[in-house]
């Protein structure tokens, strides 16, 4: 099947635009965070004055006058989300165009795969923003995703090309899409758990991470969000691994062979099982469980980069 160069070019163009738009969104979220913090400080000062200059902690605040319009930080944050949506659409367009250019699924090499994982992460993030009060985290979540997308598009870029025969199977649709979505979800969950650790530490001792923690939502909300995303990702990961085993049986002659990628998938899976267990184990809820989730995040990133680039296994993509 010949490559349609026009589509391929437009795909490259869209991914670059998506990165630019994500970057703008990130700036808006950072601004939200900065202004939000200033506003919080001002309020705290006012409150402190009202309380007689005594405590520095947040005392009873005088009820603010009902705002005529949304406060600036919130407007900035909402613009950030809107831009993230736009970026995601451009990002999606780049993948779809890659698919059209090559007449196959757009995750046939490292560049495309990581790009797809980043898109899944952005979408998972947007869904979370709709459902949970976590919008302030925008900058924290978009940064690692942006970095990964940049690495994929700049350092691991591969020309649009057909895939090797081993990848020509409908299982690439089933297996890889499950892996992509699960990895995307885990990336978001990991970042949120990391922020949970910060916030929980601050709640236990307000001196710790005071600056950063002031910009974060309640730890309970963070914990719940991270759990929700992980619980969405875990069955998908399980399914992805099973689908991979079924594919391996028809492609490589065995359903499981401890190929590096298989091994890391197994490790991630065990870590997430441990995460779910830790939330049901006395003494492990909260910060410890969050660290387990962060370990899962690390395993996911390790799987994305290290295994594909450093080890040589059957999974190595052609034309990295």
């Amino acid at each position, binding site marked *: 099947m010949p490559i349609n160069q026009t589509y391929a070019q437009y795909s490259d163009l869209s991914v670059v635009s998506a990165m630019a738009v994500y970057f703008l969104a990130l700036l808006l979220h950072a601004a939200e965070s900065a202004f939000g913090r200033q506003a919080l400080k001002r309020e705290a000062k006012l409150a402190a004055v009202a309380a007689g200059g005594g405590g520095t902690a947040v005392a009873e605040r005088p009820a603010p006058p009902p705002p005529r319009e949304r406060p600036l930080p919130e407007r900035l944050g909402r613009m950030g989300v809107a831009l993230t949506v736009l970026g995601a659409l451009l990002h999606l367009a780049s993948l779809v165009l890659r698919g059209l250019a090559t007449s196959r699924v757009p995750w046939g090499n490292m560049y495309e795969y990581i790009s797809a994982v980043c898109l899944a992460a952005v979408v998972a993030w947007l869904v979370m923003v709709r459902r949970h009060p976590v919008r302030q985290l925008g900058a924290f979540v978009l940064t690692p995703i942006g970095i990964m997308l940049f690495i994929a598009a700049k350092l691991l870029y591969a020309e649009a090309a057909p895939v090797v025969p*081993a990848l020509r199977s409908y299982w690439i649709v089933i297996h890889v899409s499950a892996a992509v979505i699960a990895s995307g979800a885990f990336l978001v969950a990991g970042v949120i758990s990391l922020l949970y650790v910060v916030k929980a530490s601050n709640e236990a001792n307000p001196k710790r991470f005071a600056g950063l923690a002031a910009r974060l939502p309640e730890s309970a909300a963070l914990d719940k969000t991270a759990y929700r995303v992980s619980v969405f990702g875990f069955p998908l990961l399980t399914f992805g691994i099973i689908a991979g085993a079924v594919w391996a049986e028809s492609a490589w002659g065995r*359903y499981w062979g401890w190929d590096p990628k298989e091994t890391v998938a197994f490790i991630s899976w065990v870590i997430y099982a441990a995460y779910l267990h830790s939330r049901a*184990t006395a003494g492990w809820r909260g910060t410890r469980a969050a660290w387990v989730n962060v370990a899962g995040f690390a395993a996911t990133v390790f799987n994305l980069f290290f295994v594909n680039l450093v080890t040589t296994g059957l999974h190595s993509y*052609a034309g990295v």
Partner: protein
Amino acid sequence: MAGILALLRNTWRGLTAMRTALVLLFLLALAALPGVLLPQYSLNSAKVEQYKAEHDVVGPWLDKLGFFNVFAAPWFAAIYLMLFVSLIGCLVPRTFEFAQQLRAEPTLTPRRLTRMPHYARAEVDADPDAVVAHAKERLRGWRVAVREEADGARTISAERGFLREAGNLVFHFSMMLLLVGLAAGKLYGYEGQVIVRADGSENRQWCNSGLFAYDSFRPGLRVDGTELSPFCVRVDGFQAKYLHTGQADVFHADLTYQDGAASLGNDPDAWRKYGLEVNSPLRVNGDRVYLLGHGYAPRFVVTFPDGQQRTGAVQWKPMDTTTLLSEGATKFDRPGVTDPEQRRKTQLAVTGLFAPTAGYDGTVLTSVFPMPNRPAVAVDVYVGDLGTDSGTPQSIFSIDRRMVDAGRLSKVARKNLELGQELTLDDGTRIRFDGVENWVSLQVSHDPAQEWVLVAAVLVLVGLGGSLLVKRRRLWLRAAPSGDADGTGRTVVEVGGLARTDQAGYGEEFTRLAGGLLAVGRPLAAPGGGRERQDVP
């Protein structure tokens, strides 16, 4: 004695505690890590050797401790076996508990429903019986118990979401089934590789008749190679296509095969055709046949001074997977020489490089493309004693260097040949590069338990779905006749809800349900007290 029992009991308790399971899970993840970071024998033993050569201090130790064979190491097995013992210890009591819960009545309605995380209240003009009847109607699919309290109030206790625990048990039990299936595969499975020439000649059929038929064979612990599934294959042709970049595009082998113990290749009518490709193995008689790779066998025609001809074509080994530059050795005995002494002086080997599409770097042959567009060889011809009589098996891809070092085998010519060209030795022997044949390498795999592993895996997934998606939740309703008894049948209805699991999200369902339960008769006071708190108090 009592001390020992107590010790045993404590050990068992410790082993089956949730915290232990957690630690064992961490250990399992940690123990698998060297399987990625260090080279493994099972994947690439050459890399292990290289690693050991580069790390001559730690290498041998790591080797002794099993770090190059992690997934067969005793310590790895110890971890997962302990995990599964812990699992059994955990599952058995939980299964009994679950069975009891299934039979038990939903719990009594708490005195103060206002304390529940979810709560709603209304005053209606229906009497308690009507409220209860209405509620029972609405609570289809819930397990309900209706009770009457001392002051005449009627209560309903309702519970739902038992599938969660059921799913959890299915999940954990299926994990054990999966492990058993895996182990069975290791015991009764086998895997072997063989190189077969792809020219379809009748006498080149390959039969799965025993270990000797394979180039390499990995039997399961309970497999001795005597009872392999009988079938035969013949490769009639092979096509490989590559993109101009050298990337593989299509591999296709035309196979004929027959199965059955009786004929084993001897029944001319039993042959069937199959197009073997990379993602579609031939499944025959409980075994699978895979196309692993391919390569070339250059064909040489040797014309001896006395006019006799011999043709030889054996597979040469690809050295570079993208250009298929190959190396090998094609060996000949001089025809008509019967005296062993004489024979050992006149054996001949054509060794060197084969390029499917030749490119020259000066006179050094390289290959620029993997398809046979311009085949060429760069050969060294050796004459003398190949050492094939010594009894030690030798590689088919090379000559025995020791014979060269011992001066019993010597190089007599070196030349680049393109297709059809020939070289002449001093004694008048002519060697012509006559053609190129294809070979394919096949893998035969057998795993009688893999269907069971698949079933277990699907059950794992189903159980996981139930365990994570279903919410275990309770609901109570109390319908009490209102205090100011003016005889109009006023009733105060309270509804409380509690989700017993980590999953938030009972709130919406509760609000909807409570709304339905309270919508009975004519509301006298607007449904009040409706509020929602965090699920986890």
